């Protein structure tokens, strides 16, 4: 074998080895989806749950009630968890890369504060952007549309003025403050009960994921993630700054604009159904980065796999903890915070910057 072939071979071998991280977590995610069918407040053993699952696929439903819980409640929730975790992690990877900031996350542009304002307006004042809707659908729809306002403002502004990444982050924060101050005003002046229900909405729960809305989520996350993945080489070039990226044939402002809109759409779709699930979008990419490096070709699938596996596991714990137990957003931060801290110290190496 010539030296060059050996070099190429070694590169591919290394890539494959790093990609094992992604494969491992994909397997964990897939297994967790199946296993999580056996966990929840409704008592059914894991084997029974799996049997019910297999029965449903083969077309012979034995116990209607078991089938309702396993097939209609648990399965969409588990699949939803996988896609939501994957989408948030993907969004985090792209945001950190675009903003050249390790603290960027899918919510950096003010998506979550927009969604929350939309939801609160609907819950407290009965305001709905789409007039025909009411109740839960109005909340979801409001949240979705409001969460896109910040990115719309920033896109509009960037047409008139060239914005650096820091300026975009700062503008995002300014918009976030405006939105959350209005929300706070509404929350503080609201009745205690209304405040409580709004607060519960924000904390984030996957219980609202059903077969009806799951396709919407899956399509958004899958299509946008795939589009973002096709940008992986362009995004790699962005690591070395806007100027260098340009000399490598990438239009930095255009790429940033397009990616911001895509990430915001994806995050909006997730947040409007589940509320704000923190941690994964910020820390998921960093954990994957520690194992596979920053090359987007490997980082993107790894972060996606990690995010999916992590959120299903967190949601399984949430389900086990009972109806009034821990919300999934709380679990993901409660476990993830220390985990991240541990890895940071243990690895004792520069995560980024």
């Amino acid at each position, binding site marked *: 074998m010539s030296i060059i072939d050996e070099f190429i071979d070694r590169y591919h071998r290394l890539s494959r080895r790093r990609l094992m991280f992604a494969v491992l977590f994909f397997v964990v995610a897939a297994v967790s989806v199946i296993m999580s069918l056996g966990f929840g407040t409704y008592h059914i053993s894991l084997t029974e749950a799996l049997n019910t699952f297999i029965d449903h696929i083969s077309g012979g439903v034995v116990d209607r009630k078991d089938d309702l819980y396993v097939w209609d409640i648990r399965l969409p929730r588990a699949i939803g968890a996988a896609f939501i975790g994957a989408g948030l992690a993907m969004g985090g990877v792209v945001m950190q890369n675009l903003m050249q900031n390790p603290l960027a996350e899918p919510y950096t542009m003010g998506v979550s504060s927009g969604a929350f304002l939309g939801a609160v307006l609907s819950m407290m004042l009965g305001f709905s952007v789409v007039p025909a809707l009411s109740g839960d659908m109005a909340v979801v729809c409001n949240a979705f549309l409001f969460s896109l306002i910040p990115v719309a403002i920033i896109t509009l502004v960037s047409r008139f003025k060239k914005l650096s990444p820091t300026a975009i*982050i700062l*503008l995002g924060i300014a918009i976030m*403050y*405006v939105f959350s101050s209005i929300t706070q005003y509404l*929350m*503080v*002046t609201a009745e205690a009960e209304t405040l409580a229900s709004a607060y519960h909405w924000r904390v984030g729960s996957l219980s609202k994921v059903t077969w009806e809305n799951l396709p919407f989520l899956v399509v958004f996350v899958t299509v946008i993630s795939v589009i973002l993945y096709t940008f992986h080489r362009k995004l790699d070039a962005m690591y070395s700054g806007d100027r260098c990226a340009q000399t490598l044939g990438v239009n930095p402002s255009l790429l940033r604009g397009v990616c911001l809109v895509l990430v915001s759409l994806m995050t909006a779709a997730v947040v409007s159904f589940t509320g704000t699930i923190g941690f994964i979008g910020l820390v998921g990419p960093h954990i994957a980065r520690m194992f596979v490096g920053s090359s987007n070709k490997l980082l993107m699938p790894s972060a996606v796999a990690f995010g999916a596996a992590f959120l299903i596991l967190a949601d399984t714990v949430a389900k086990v903890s009972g109806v009034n137990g821990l*919300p999934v957003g709380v679990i993901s931060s409660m476990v993830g915070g220390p985990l991240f801290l541990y890895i940071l*110290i243990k690895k004792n190496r*520069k995560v980024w910057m």
Partner: protein
Amino acid sequence: MNPIESSDELVTRYHRQALRKLLVLVVSVVGVIVVVGLFSVSVYDSVSIMEAYGIIWDHIMGVQHAPRSTEWWADRFIWNTVMPRVVAAIVAGASLAAAGALMQSLMNNPLADPYSTGISSGACFGAIMALVLGLTINSLSGQSGMVVNAFLGSLIPVAIVILISKRMPVSPASLILVGTALSYFFSSMVTYMMVITDADTLQNAYIWQVGTLDTVTWESIPLMFGVTVVGSAFVMFLSRQLNILSLGDANAKTLGLDVEKFRIVCLLVMAVMTASIVCFTGTIGFLGLVAPHLVRLLIGSDNRFVIPIAMAMGAFILVLADYIAMSVSDVPVGVVMSIIGSPIFFALILWQKKGYGTVY
């Protein structure tokens, strides 16, 4: 910028900049005084603004008024309802702004604020533990139990940072990452407690979290004031070192600054300063992040001037926001501040001129 032709021009330019700094300082201080007057009149409207100043001055000078005279009533009203609130606003505004400026230089990051290492979520954790679970240190109850809990809670994250600082690089990036991880952890605990409690307790806890000056009394002032005076003196004393730090870690080391140790010491000072405010007022956001930026945009980024002027500016903003909060309706001051302040911040980012302390 034009080239400087002569030494005279350099001198005039220097003086012009000094004048600008002085102007910002004077506007802030005068602003505070004006708002104090307005505040007093709004609580007790049978005196004019000038009389209100007279009454405050008399009280400070120890002049006694005849019982039940107009002055006596005015004195009681102003001194017991307005002043603790105003003094708290001034102290808290100054302290949070100084801490914010310190944090931004320390972390070399324009997005850092006093809460960046998890102080706010730690404080919430302490306070809400008292509020929801009734768990307090020394089994103090009610308001004081909450204050002590919040104070101690806010120091936990910094204590953890200091404990593990030996085992990790004390670079701004890793400190912020650690702070973020800690914030996430403590906020998740807070969220958990908020979710399991009943609606009324949640409402109380939420209002505490948003931050308000309604509950401040004279008893709160000495600790806040003392810590702020000592802390800000310390910060100003270090402003030269902070300037050196802005050159980057490696350069700062060659200029004789023990960067890691300096960062840890500053972090500790900042934590105590912020904790002493937060435990009484809840987490008032926005100010610590934005006040230093506003000042930098106006006068440039020399820390020797930024810190004192940011303190004056912070005090002014908070007093003004509190006045508006009280006169419009009973909205928490934090809400008012962000509703008014964030559009201004937005505009400043967009239309700032290059040259003066650009944020980015």
